């Protein structure tokens, strides 16, 4: 067992974990943050995407012990007052059907917009290449991210 200390969504967490515990299971079962989804569990689908020290990563491809000292953001951490503009845009543009991929998609989109506030369509599609959606055909998701970028840009200008 290893003691790990990390920050999730700005809050400190400390737990004893088995070395083989994956970060996704740590988040859901120890930290009790169940917004991050377990999809394929093989590193393909991106449903478990979170932000790890500022970068989008798949939390099923990282051990909990590797996150010792890290700062993470999960889907629970992006909304401050009500929904985050990306979440609102996903609703406005009907970018959610079954919702399974949504937390991962939103975290990938969030990571993109942190680095590139005004992405073009190619950049948006590249940013979500690691996230699979079996419902929407991606078009609405791309539109939602583009819409969110404009929305965030507008609110910052105010």
């Amino acid at each position, binding site marked *: 067992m290893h003691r790990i200390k990390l920050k999730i969504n700005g809050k400190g967490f400390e737990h004893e974990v088995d070395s083989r515990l994956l970060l996704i299971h740590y988040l859901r079962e120890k930290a009790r943050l169940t917004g991050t989804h377990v999809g394929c569990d093989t590193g393909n689908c991106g449903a478990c995407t979170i932000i790890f020290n500022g970068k*989008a990563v798949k939390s099923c*491809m990282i051990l909990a*012990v590797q996150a010792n000292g890290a700062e993470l953001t999960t889907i629970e951490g992006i909304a401050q007052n009500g929904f985050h503009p990306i979440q609102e845009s996903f609703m406005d543009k009907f970018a959610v059907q079954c919702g399974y991929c949504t937390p991962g998609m939103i975290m990938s989109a969030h990571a993109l917009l942190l680095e590139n506030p005004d992405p073009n369509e190619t950049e948006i599609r*590249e940013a979500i290449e690691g996230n699979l959606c079996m419902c929407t055909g991606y078009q609405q998701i791309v539109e939602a991210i583009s819409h969110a970028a404009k929305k965030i840009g507008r609110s910052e200008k105010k």
Partner: protein
Amino acid sequence: MYPNRFEYFAPTSLQEALSLLSIYQDEAKLLAGGQSLLSLMKLRLANPKYLIDLGHIADLNYIRQNGDKIAIGAMTTYAQIKDSELLRKDCPLLVKTASVVGDVQVRNRGTIGGSLSHADPAADMPAAVLASGAELKAVHLNGERWIKAEEFFVTTFTTALAPNEILTEIRAPTLAGHKTIYLKAAPRPTDFAIVGIAACLRLGPNNRCEGIAMGVTGASDKAYRPQALEKALQGEKLDFYTIREAAARVTEGIEVNENIHASSGFRSHLAQVYTARAIQTAMNS
């Protein structure tokens, strides 16, 4: 999915990591970005008793000029390579290759040293280090040695590294003035290559080939340099027919893989087509 049980170490210095490795040797695995190893461990195809995490050793992550070469720390991620201005200027082949490895999340975690040491026969990075003429630094407790890229890949998941050695640095010559490209055929862009071709050319007047180095991945049990092909083009004027004729030799002397994605015949054909395309694309770059 849970890996088998293992003991985990997070050394904070290379010396400490080397000491652990010298104790546990074959029973230990080094963890870099984990984007390949953790998959294998979850599937229980890899079951190391001891896992030595290199992620807390700060001085393995850098990209810097070193005389006429560029030194890249083994723990440098694909994303860092992709975004490196220094590499974009002096060694763009590595940037082009890192940009098409996996997806965003994989590139944010996966490292060049991890990929090379893992030696997946369909990984992208081995082709690029072969074509760029890189040398790899292997360190053990009592010293270090440099291994040429073409001597590094032995067979599937097997490199020239000894059980007590750690790959710490990749040193690539600056290739300013060279024409380079990496092209891959894959079921989807984020997948492993069915065939991947890295090309590095130096052209003289009238498109005469003054220097050529290629790296081929995905075709066989390891990434390799297609020597017959390189020899056929060295000194020649590179026109469509010369390139096409030489490209037929890209798998000469190689036992070509067969799997659900491609038969060995189709894979050889793809290798030829992508070789010709890579050379032409590099020339026009």
